[in-house]
């Protein structure tokens, strides 16, 4: 008997492939990308009865035509077959549709094991499947069960072991797979209840009701955001506390008065930089958890349907909605989330405008400027206008892109609305971890590198600071005479057109690493030290003394619209597999932001 068996999981989307894959492999899985496309490649190892199964979870496909990226991958995997056995998952409650793929696989002479899943749901709906008869008719081993059955994965693996012993199945040519599939399905299923999927249909009558659907839609979004921020913020605070303590403790090793460069590099550069990234992770993991839940419950597909008619007017589609919405949290996972959009041009257009959706890192900048300059009764309105303006810009730019450089025929919506189900906690946890891990590695490495670079730019060349200078003043002098200070001064004439000065210029440059850095950088440049926050009264006073209200509005608009942060740039490069789109995005957004800000300042100065 073989000690290693290579298995490919094949099935339609929503058949429960990922759940079974997770059950089989647990944490022993690796997620990467197929070369050249951004389709997730999932591989893992399962151990059963002393045999090691190498399992590749092929992307979910509806049929074996080479049209979508997913289908091309599966097509190639079957053409250059290098696995021992294919496990073909079929849905017990929609057998006819799923068996088409089974017969296509069989036709190619690939040794298969058919795993009939979701038998619990089928039984509930009164569908009984005679799996012995199914095995006879298909001429392949058939295992039946559901992800909730303990022994289901073991039964599948046992069948795989048996099937791997028969090398290649007997090749048979089927021309009318569809008809055959329907006939087989009819022969093996006996429906005792009328009205299949009745429970889901009942839920849909409420959820998709013309009057209820929109309020419910926004309620779900609201709850998602509440969950992310109310649960995430205390954890973020905790992490910030831990990193602050770590910085103080390690910094303490050098002594209070030490101005060792190495200390500054470790404490401000490394700990500050890594801490900055890590303190964002609770929010991001919670967001991914929420998405996994919406996806697993079946509501996500409905959200795409509800939004489709609105977004098609802007050259986007229903599937663009979720990634854009995620942009309110963080552009990085949002751009990764755009993978669900099939049409390439529609996908790129969506990714290009995601940074206009105001991410959470920009919030501290708004809070600082709005609380310093806007009268209290208008502050809420100002905040709302900023977010709204971001959404409008996103839609306008998307429309422009789709009418010019990203022109393509509009892809019509055609999606299956999976039955409502309660996702299992373990599959939610695995999905959250697997996507979050991706974010940590990709964004973490880039932000770390960028913060090291920024630390260098603010630290060199070393300034001459007379003895006896207070600490905050010393820091300010250092930054002013550093590379970053010089850049700020070099771009001052341009920044002046939007009412700012060199301080604003260098703080905006620093904000490229992560938008919220703008606040602490302004704190440093006004000699308040690097710990100044958006709530700092001293900083607000300094800003009011230095800048005009028109400049504050220009700066707000600039922060909203300007170039995405470095992590976003990096993820755009990774997801589009080209430098072109991130560069166009970076330059384009900066231009739009600058022109808007200059216009706002000019008009604002005349009016106010």
């Amino acid at each position, binding site marked *: 008997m073989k000690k290693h068996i290579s298995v490919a999981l094949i099935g339609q989307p929503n058949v429960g492939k990922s759940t079974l894959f997770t059950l089989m492999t647990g944490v022993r899985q690796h997620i990467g990308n197929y070369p050249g496309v951004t389709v997730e490649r999932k591989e893992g190892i399962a151990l059963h009865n002393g045999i090691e199964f190498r399992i590749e979870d092929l992307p979910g496909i509806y*049929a074996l035509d080479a*049209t979508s990226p997913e289908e091309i991958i599966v097509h190639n995997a079957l053409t250059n077959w290098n696995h021992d056995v294919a496990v073909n998952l079929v849905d017990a409650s*929609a057998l006819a549709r799923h068996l088409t793929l089974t017969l296509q696989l069989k036709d190619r002479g690939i040794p298969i094991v058919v795993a009939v899943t979701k038998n619990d749901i089928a039984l509930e709906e009164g569908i009984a499947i005679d799996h012995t008869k199914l095995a006879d008719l298909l001429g392949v081993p058939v295992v039946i069960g559901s992800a909730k059955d303990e022994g289901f994965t073991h039964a599948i693996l046992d069948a795989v072991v048996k099937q791997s012993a028969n090398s290649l199945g007997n090749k048979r040519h089927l021309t009318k797979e569809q008809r055959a599939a329907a006939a087989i399905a009819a022969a093996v299923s006996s429906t005792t209840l009328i009205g299949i*999927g009745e429970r889901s*249909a009942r839920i849909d009558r409420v959820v998709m009701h013309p009057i209820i659907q929109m309020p419910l839609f926004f309620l779900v979004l609201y709850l998602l955001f509440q969950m992310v921020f109310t649960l995430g913020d205390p954890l973020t605070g905790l992490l910030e506390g831990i990193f602050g303590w770590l910085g103080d403790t390690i910094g303490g090793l050098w002594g209070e008065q030490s101005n060792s460069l190495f200390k500054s590099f470790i404490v401000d550069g490394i700990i500050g930089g890594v801490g900055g990234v890590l303190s964002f992770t609770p929010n991001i993991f919670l967001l991914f958890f929420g998405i996994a839940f919406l996806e697993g419950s079946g509501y996500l*597909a409905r959200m795409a349907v509800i939004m489709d*008619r609105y977004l098609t007017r802007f050259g986007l589609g229903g599937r663009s909605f979720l990634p854009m919405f995620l942009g309110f949290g963080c552009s990085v996972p949002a751009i990764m989330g755009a993978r669900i959009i099939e049409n390439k041009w529609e996908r790129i257009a969506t990714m290009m405008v995601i940074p206009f959706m105001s991410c959470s890192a920009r919030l501290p900048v708004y809070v600082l400027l709005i609380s310093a300059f806007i009268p209290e009764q208008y502050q809420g309105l100002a905040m709302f206008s900023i977010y709204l303006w971001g959404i409008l810009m996103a839609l306008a730019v998307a429309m422009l892109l789709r009418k010019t450089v990203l022109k393509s025929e509009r892809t*019509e919506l*055609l999606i*299956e609305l999976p039955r409502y189900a309660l996702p299992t906690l373990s599959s939610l946890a695995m999905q959250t971890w697997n996507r979050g891990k991706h974010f940590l590695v990709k964004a973490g490495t880039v932000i770390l590198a960028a913060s090291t670079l920024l630390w260098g730019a603010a630290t060199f060349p070393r300034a001459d600071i007379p003895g006896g200078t207070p600490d905050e003043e010393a820091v300010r002098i250092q930054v002013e005479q550093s590379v970053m200070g010089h850049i700020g001064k070099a771009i001052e004439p341009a920044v002046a057109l939007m009412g700012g000065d060199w301080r604003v210029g260098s703080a905006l440059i620093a904000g490229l690493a992560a938008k919220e850095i703008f606040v602490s950088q302004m704190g440093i440049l006004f000699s308040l030290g690097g710990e100044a926050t958006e709530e700092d009264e001293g900083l607000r006073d300094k800003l009011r003394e230095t800048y005009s209200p028109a400049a504050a509005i220009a700066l707000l608009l600039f922060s909203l619209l300007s170039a995405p942060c470095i992590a976003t740039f990096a993820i755009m490069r990774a997801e589009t597999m080209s430098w072109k789109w991130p560069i166009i995005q970076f330059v384009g957004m900066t231009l739009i932001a600058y022109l808007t800000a200059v216009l706002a300042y000019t008009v604002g100065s005349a009016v106010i």
Partner: protein
Amino acid sequence: MTLSTVDQGNRVVVRHIQPSRMLTARLAAMGITEGSLVTVVSNKRHGPILLDVEGTRIAIGRGIAEKIVVEPLS
């Protein structure tokens, strides 16, 4: 008549699908082929149409529905 003009609640049989290699295959994978029975669950004047095909819910763009010729089931 085309699928896009069917009022909700009606059950129809698919007679013809305007040929397009990619579309035909995708529709077939969703269980929509010539001869299949389809119930229109929801159809407003704009936006996607919701169908029930053999117990599976499918949302289909209006443009696609216009390419599917159907006949009411009496």
